[in-house]
């Protein structure tokens, strides 16, 4: 019996490795865990897209639960998301936009074409604030709580399913906190 036990070990090991590799097939390597969750929003001061003379401070988003959506007019996936963001804006969700590495002319044109769900849009032409946020593509969406702490991050297009399953319950929960 003991003899068989030792001989079975490589097969068991092989099977364990197979399970791990099989699991690995269904993991998306582009879905990275965010280290930003739990940290406060990096301090920034960026010009507003619609009024470039006005500087927007990161402290201005404090006091309410908001979405921060990173988008750009060159980002084709952002168009797909826009319909959903418009719906959220109609439902009364405060959405701030971070216009990522874009020029303001294209961005404003894009908003005219696809609609503007944002309460305010900050232009990050250099992508500096995006680096501080750990953004590696557009679109990306953050949930920021009342004290200005990042509570959630989603890289990629938001949709109804994700919103109802993860984001809305979290936002309601954060809304309860004082």
């Amino acid at each position, binding site marked *: 019996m003991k003899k068989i036990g030792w*001989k079975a070990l490589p097969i068991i090991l092989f099977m364990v490795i197979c399970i791990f590799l099989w699991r690995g097939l269904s993991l998306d390597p582009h879905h990275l865990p965010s280290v930003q969750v739990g940290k406060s929003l990096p301090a920034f001061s960026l010009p507003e897209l619609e009024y470039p003379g006005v500087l927007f401070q990161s402290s201005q988003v404090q006091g309410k639960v908001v979405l921060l959506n990173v988008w750009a007019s060159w980002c084709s996936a952002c168009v797909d998301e826009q319909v959903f963001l418009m719906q959220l804006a109609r439902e009364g969700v405060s959405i701030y936009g971070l216009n990522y590495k874009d020029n303001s002319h294209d961005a404003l044109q894009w908003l005219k074409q696809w609609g503007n769900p944002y309460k305010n849009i900050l232009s990050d032409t250099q992508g500096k604030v995006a680096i501080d946020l750990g953004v590696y593509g557009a679109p990306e969406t953050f949930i920021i709580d009342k004290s200005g702490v990042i509570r959630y991050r989603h890289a990629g297009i938001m949709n109804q399913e994700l919103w109802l399953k993860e984001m809305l319950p979290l936002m309601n929960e954060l809304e309860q906190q004082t």
Partner: protein
Amino acid sequence: MKSIVSLIFFFFFIGLSYANTMYPLDTPKQEAQFEHLLKDLRCLVCQNQDLADSNADLAKDLRLQVYNLVKEGKSDTEINDYLSARYGDFVLFKPPVKSLTLMLWFGPFLFLILGVVIFWRTCFKRASYE
């Protein structure tokens, strides 16, 4: 013959001088630091490329950021900390040793020891049968 050799050498160093004009640094030491940092940092868009090789927009921005930090005289650990605070340990090709990465670092040795033990046991058993 000599001209061919010198031509080859010319092409060897044209890349080097080109890199220097794009990211001019004060000392050779900083240049060396900049170069090895770019090799040790991962581009997050094309994930198996380092920052030195990648042409993604984000990689360009991060290269510039690393360049500025090197220019400011920051150390390797400070720059690595700066990036991993934003993008996580995934940005480093050499992740730090901590409880989460123990298996990653020492797993291979564990398997090696296990293999040797199995090999030893089987051989030992076989010898005793004869």
